[in-house]
């Protein structure tokens, strides 16, 4: 009998996720062994129309990475949803917007302007993209940018979420294993909508650093001063997001002496990732004097960036006001 | 070595020349570096404030603005004159307490392309700097001719210990700093009850009778304690008590002879500097006799007016431990 079909797609994202998948070493052979890769723009040459031609639900597993930034992204998201039995929001971008989601702090028009008119751009005729344009070879179409980037589940129904920027290879391997097990009837799929390839607690759970009762009198950048290699970074005033970030990465950054920046997104059941950090950080500030508190908070120069680096599009407010005002 | 910006004030160049001379004479021995604020102007004394708010504060603040320009790294302005000290400190404080005032003053300063950010300078009195920065031990070590046997009434007047916006002094009513300094010089310091009472201020000019009464109180009290002289740190006080003493005597038919000298002059004497270098002789009520006493034994006098030190009878309460700044200087403690 023919192998179950596998697809992977790359919407608004950096491509790191594809690398991560290839990074699972010999496990990639299992993928090949167990699946028939029908659609994977970076790996195999399939055209959209080929996918459109497939019967609905023909694909068993689709790993969709990247957010929905333009009409092409949305079209393919909907298409793959129709064609796939299991659609996985793969990686931070698809799950919660990730770095591309930070563009939600500015209106789309500004983004286009920045892209086409800043010094970094060589654009002598000051050209702007157009959705339709006729060239001698015929008419070409360029995707239309949306006012904001949306997460996959804000556009289509998603079966599973796999967080991480990118997801850790050992986690991907584990998921591949799981699916293979399921195929061989050796395992059950987790309930729809659940997060796979990650833990249920937060990074601290896997973090080797010592921790005590916290009482913070100042926040500092991690560079330019001695850092106790044993002690919890937050206790040293380093704004480490590990406390609120889903476990599963084996606390890579903190164990390596860098603060967690939160790529694994919120813990199980958390509604707004940033809110958790705001309240947690504020809770352990050791001051009752408004001015002193403000002075201490100056140690977090860009709270929005600190708290929503990966989660903005997936947060309650989803975007900066300037972006939604235009919407 | 600390470096300070000096705001001398008008009197230092005229009525309080003795203060200026003696200060100049002692700075080297105690290693006090002073740099005069260039082209400073009068602080308005106690007069301008009573005429018009913004101009008065603008007048004062021009000096701070100039000082701020001149101060590279050093932010302490030292004023030897009480009124100057208070006016500078007050302007700085009120512009902080009431930003509106700060706005108006800076708007005025704009007209002279100047500006001053309240709180950017630290305004301190000369004595404050000598006690807390130079330190008593340091001063003791410089004493070659202790003022042994000289009974001195320490007199600070009003505007140094009060209102004391920054809490720099040990007390508003009975601060100990001057006493400690004079003791360090070896003088016999009387517990002068009126040490921070008023010398009459500008009343010598506008209501002499009022002023004479205030002068009388001070001189009389110091005399009761058989002080040989009064040591002050304020040109106005010195002027009133010294220059108006004879007039006061005439007014009340008294015959006091109480020399009024600047504490810096006594420091100079103790450091062994020649009196003439210290502005002695400029005082109208001569300190000659008092100076002669230095070094001589004085017979024990029963009649001296002193308070019962805890003799027989009921014990006295222990004195209150000095405020932090004093306390932290252990040498001051003893």
């Amino acid at each position, binding site marked *: 009998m023919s192998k179950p079909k596998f697809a992977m797609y790359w919407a608004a994202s950096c491509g790191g996720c594809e690398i991560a998948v290839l990074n699972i070493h010999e496990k990639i052979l299992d993928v090949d062994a167990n699946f028939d890769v029908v659609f994977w723009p970076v790996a195999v040459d399939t055209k959209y129309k080929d996918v459109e031609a497939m019967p609905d639900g023909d694909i068993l597993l689709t790993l969709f990475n990247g957010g929905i930034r*333009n*009409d092409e992204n949305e079209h393919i998201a909907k298409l793959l949803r129709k064609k796939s039995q299991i659609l996985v929001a793969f990686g931070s971008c698809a799950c919660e917007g990730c770095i591309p989601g930070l563009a939600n*702090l500015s*209106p*789309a*028009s500004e983004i*286009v302007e920045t892209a086409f008119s800043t010094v970094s751009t060589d654009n002598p*005729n*000051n*050209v*702007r*993209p*157009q*959705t339709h344009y006729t060239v001698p070879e015929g008419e070409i179409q360029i995707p*239309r*940018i*949306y*006012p*904001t980037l*949306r997460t996959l589940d*804000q*556009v289509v129904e998603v079966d599973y979420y796999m967080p991480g920027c990118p997801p850790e290879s050992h986690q991907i391997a584990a998921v591949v294993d799981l699916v293979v097990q399921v195929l061989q009837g050796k395992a059950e799929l987790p309930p729809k909508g659940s997060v796979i390839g990650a833990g249920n607690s937060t990074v601290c759970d896997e973090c080797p650093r010592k921790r005590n009762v916290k009482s913070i009198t100042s926040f500092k950048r991690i560079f330019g001063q001695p850092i106790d290699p044993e002690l919890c970074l937050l206790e040293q005033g380093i704004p480490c997001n590990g406390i609120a970030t889903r476990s599963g990465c084996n606390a890579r950054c903190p164990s390596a002496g860098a603060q967690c920046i939160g790529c694994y997104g919120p813990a199980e059941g958390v*509604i*707004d990732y*940033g*809110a*958790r950090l*705001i*309240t947690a*950080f*504020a*809770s352990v*500030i050791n*001051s*009752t004097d*408004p001015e002193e*508190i*403000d002075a201490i*908070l100056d140690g*977090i120069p*860009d*709270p*929005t*960036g600190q*708290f*929503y680096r990966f989660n903005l599009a997936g*947060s*309650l*407010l*989803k*975007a*900066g*006001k*300037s972006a*939604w*005002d*235009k*919407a | 070595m600390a470096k300070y910006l000096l705001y001398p004030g008008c009197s230092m160049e005229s009525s309080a020349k003795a203060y200026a001379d003696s200060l100049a004479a002692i700075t080297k021995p105690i290693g006090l570096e002073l740099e005069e604020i260039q082209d400073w102007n009068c602080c308005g004394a106690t007069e301008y404030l009573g005429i018009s708010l913004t101009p008065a504060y603008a007048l004062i603040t021009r000096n701070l603005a100039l000082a701020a320009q001149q101060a590279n790294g050093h932010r302490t302005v030292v004023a030897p004159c009480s009124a100057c000290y208070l006016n500078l400190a007050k302007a700085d404080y009120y512009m902080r307490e009431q930003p509106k005032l700060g706005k108006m003053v800076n708007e005025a300063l704009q007209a002279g392309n100047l500006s001053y950010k309240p709180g950017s300078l630290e305004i301190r009195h000369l004595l404050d700097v000598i006690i807390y920065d130079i330190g008593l031990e340091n001063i003791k070590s410089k004493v070659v001719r202790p003022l042994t046997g000289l009974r001195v009434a320490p007199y600070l007047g009003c505007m140094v210990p009060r209102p004391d916006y920054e809490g720099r002094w040990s007390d508003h009513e009975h601060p100990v700093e001057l006493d400690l300094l004079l003791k360090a010089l070896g003088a016999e310091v009387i517990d002068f009850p009126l040490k921070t009472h008023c010398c009459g201020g500008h009343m010598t000019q506008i209501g002499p009778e009022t002023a004479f009464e205030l002068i009388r109180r001070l001189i009389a009290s110091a005399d009761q304690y058989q002080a040989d002289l009064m040591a002050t740190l304020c040109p106005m006080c010195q002027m009133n008590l010294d220059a108006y003493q004879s007039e006061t005597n005439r007014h009340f038919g008294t015959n006091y002879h109480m020399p009024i000298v600047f504490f810096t002059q006594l420091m100079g004497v103790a450091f062994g500097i020649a009196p003439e270098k210290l502005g002695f002789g400029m005082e109208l009520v001569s300190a000659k006799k008092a100076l002669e006493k230095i070094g001589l034994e004085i017979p024990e006098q029963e009649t001296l007016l002193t308070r019962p030190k805890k003799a027989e009878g009921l014990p006295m309460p222990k004195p209150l431990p000095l405020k932090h700044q004093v306390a932290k200087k252990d040498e001051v403690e003893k």
Partner: protein
Amino acid sequence: MSDVFEPVIVGFTCNWCSYRAADLAGTARMKYAPNIRLIRLMCSGRLDPTFVFKALANGADGVMITGCHPGECHYLEQNYKALRRFHLMRRTLKGLGVEPERVKLVWASAAEGAKFASEVTAFVEEIRALGPLHWGKALGNGSTPNVAEEAVGKEKMEVAA
């Protein structure tokens, strides 16, 4: 609906002081703007920024948080924690381009019914001045956003000759 903008405000009140202040305003028949809807928490320390973001995301134009006066917290010191969170929350909103003034922290003791009433009315006016946030309408709840023409203005679509 009248044409003047009527802001929608969600208020979070401490069960021990400000909620009672609201009750007092009632028993004293003090009048204030009806634009506010109150939610009772045990303590301002219970306030989770999630609540505020949720309210704003779901159509509120402003959020008022009220608690016991500093030093008077029913739970000793929890209102100070609310104070810190409030500060950080406002900074974050600012970063998101939302006027921080849309979230206000008010201390009101159980005795301050009048203060509560006047604070509400004042806040309503402040928000009215800021204008609607209409966040929900724009992005809320998966409403399909309108597309490029609006994002990238038509005229920009032409090549600059």
